[in-house]
């Protein structure tokens, strides 16, 4: 999430504020990717990282790095699409006021992101939810190797397949508590709704 957030929000901001050829198709593709199954993302990444793949020489398959790349790819469409919607839905006077008061382009961008922080943190919560609950991509590019690439969702799947339901439920509770804790931290940065 730490990698995906600046990238996704930055791309969302640029898409919302810049006019360039192909912008509209790019938005449509991004919104379409919201529905992409994580296992498909994992499959594509697997093909890229496998020995015969374009990124094969990097030898990243079945590593934590591959899992992180996969989760960034899963989070990006959510962050981009929701940031774009948040910034486009902002009061146009916010930008105009920043411009009229002499703000530079980076200052205007920061001001706008702060102004729409409630919606942005909702985007972050949503992306985090998608990442923390996904299993398909982690299994495909991580390989569920104990102590190396096993995370809580893949561990739950493994324990359940072995008939260890109690272990699965315990891990599920841990996952929910962690998710709740991190979402509470997001809510702190989100601040109060303006209305």
């Amino acid at each position, binding site marked *: 999430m730490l990698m995906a957030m600046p990238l996704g929000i930055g791309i969302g901001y640029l898409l919302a504020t810049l006019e360039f050829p192909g912008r509209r198709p790019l938005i449509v593709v991004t919104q379409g990717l919201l529905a992409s199954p994580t296992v498909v993302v994992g499959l594509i990444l697997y093909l890229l990282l496998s020995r015969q793949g374009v990124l094969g020489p990097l030898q990243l398959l079945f590593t934590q790095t591959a899992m992180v790349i996969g989760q960034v790819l899963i989070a990006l469409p959510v962050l981009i699409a929701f940031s774009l919607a948040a910034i486009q839905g902002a*009061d146009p*006077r*916010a930008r*105009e*006021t*920043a*411009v*009229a*008061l*002499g*703000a*530079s382009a980076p*200052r205007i961008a920061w*001001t706008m992101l*702060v*102004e729409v922080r409630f919606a942005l943190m909702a985007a972050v919560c949503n992306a985090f939810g998608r990442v923390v609950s996904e299993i398909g991509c982690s299994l495909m590019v991580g390989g569920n190797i104990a102590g190396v690439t096993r995370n809580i969702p893949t561990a739950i799947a493994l324990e359940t397949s072995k008939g260890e339901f109690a272990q699965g439920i315990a891990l599920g509770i841990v996952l929910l508590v962690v998710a709740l804790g991190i979402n509470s931290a997001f809510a702190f940065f989100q*601040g109060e709704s*303006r209305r």
Partner: protein
Amino acid sequence: MSLLGVTTLTKSFAARRLFSIDTLTLQTGESYVLTGENGSGKSTLLRILAGIEVPDSGLGHYQDRCFNWQPYPDWLRREVIYVHQQPYLFHTSVADNIAYGLRVRGVEANQRQRLVAAAIAWARLTHLLATPPQKLSGGERQRVALARAWVLKPKVLLLDEPTANLDAESRRQTIDLLRGFCAARTTAVIACHDRDLIELPDMRRLDLASGQLCVGSFGIVSSSTSPSMACESTTRCR
């Protein structure tokens, strides 16, 4: 002395020509009211002068420097401040809103604090400091926006209907603050229909009608009409 001016300024929306202004010159330290019917282009003209909107054509000059809107020069943004009809206040605090322009200009913290305190006192906002900006009334927001502009000591102040939709007391307070701007010899252009503002002493009048701009008793505007029509327009403005 001429401060800010434009020549051959035109603006259209789709096929509709909003206005065509041959020359408009704002004199240093003078205040102007810009009148005209709804939809005549008053707000658009102010937004163009502030660099928020781009005209179809036109050239500008500020003192002896020329500029155009591709892009609007940064150095001019530091001199010209535009205030919306319904000012937007950032979701921070009243003091942070007033400090925004100073922070943008890199004014150091101590001096910023001192200037913001002076602006708060000037606009009589002390009792509102703890109130979130979004909870302020229209009149209070207008005063915060005027303080936010005042603290920057702009050379040119562009105000879009600052007293529209305000109750009598808020109107009076806003007009008092505007008098302060006029007294400080800030060149101000105020788009309005408010008779109390129009009749402020030493206020020059600009009228935007049928896409043409004409001026009241101190004529510094020419439009693309024939001389006789321009004369007729000027007479109508008085």
